[in-house]
């Protein structure tokens, strides 16, 4: 399999200790960040089935593989306390809408994969998990809070961003997803019955 280029320039740790360089790179990242069309990528050489959960390395992950489906892209980590609540809820979301055209993908940003593994032992994932230890995908999506969830349209456009996971967020996101899927149904079959 041809190794696709990185989704974003490698993060420079020095940015955080050198103010001027930091401001320049920070500005660059903001400008080069996700546009309405979503993060850049190359064409898929083979599309892993979105129905089979499994784990994917960041370098092998391509959002284009999920074109045609709504995607809920969630960024989580073992050290993130609200993720203990959002993760079981993601399984619930997948259960509700997985067969109706929603793909749930959980991107893990742990530096230590063992810690992520322990978390998954306690909260099993019924959806694909992407390993992003260097935070490349997180940076491409300009993640500002943990956890963060992005609702992406079948065309690859970012429809909504949810920062954090608080009381009430679960039902709000479910309603959002339901509305998006209902819209899609209407577009697919205008004028047809239920």
């Amino acid at each position, binding site marked *: 399999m041809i190794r696709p280029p990185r989704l974003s320039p490698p993060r420079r740790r020095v940015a955080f200790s050198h103010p001027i360089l930091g401001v320049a790179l*920070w500005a660059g990242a903001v400008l080069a960040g996700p546009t309405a069309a979503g993060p850049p990528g190359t064409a898929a050489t083979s599309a892993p089935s979105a129905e089979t959960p499994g784990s994917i390395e960041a370098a092998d992950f391509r959002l284009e593989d999920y074109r045609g489906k709504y995607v809920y892209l969630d960024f989580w980590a073992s050290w993130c306390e*609200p*993720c203990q609540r959002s993760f079981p809820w993601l399984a619930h979301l997948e259960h509700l809408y997985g067969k109706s055209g929603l793909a749930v993908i959980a991107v893990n*940003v742990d530096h230590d994969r063992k810690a992520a593994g322990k978390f998954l032992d306690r909260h099993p994932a019924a959806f694909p998990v992407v390993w992003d230890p260097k935070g490349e995908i997180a*940076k491409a999506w300009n993640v500002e*809070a*943990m956890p963060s969830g992005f609702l992406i349209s079948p065309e690859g456009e970012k429809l909504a961003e949810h920062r*954090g996971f*608080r009381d009430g967020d679960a039902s709000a996101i479910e309603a959002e997803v339901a509305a998006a899927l209902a819209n899609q149904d209407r577009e697919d079959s205008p004028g047809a019955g239920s």
Partner: protein
Amino acid sequence: MSAPRRRPRSLGRIALLALVLCPVPVVSGCATLGVEAWDRDQLARPEMKLGANATEDAIDDHIYFSKEASSGGRGFGGGGCGCN
């Protein structure tokens, strides 16, 4: 009246100056100091919380308050995993 203590005064002044100057990069470059939201694994550790030993510290503070003339100064939270 006891003799003025010079050593602690100058030592204190240097420490104070160093710590007061620390916020200068904070004020001028707050946006660039810090970490990304996904890089807070170390900060999320309970040992790295600023109030990690709050109960013990509170007891200590009360003992020192009974033996010394100073009290308080310790603050509140901040830091941590930065979640939500």
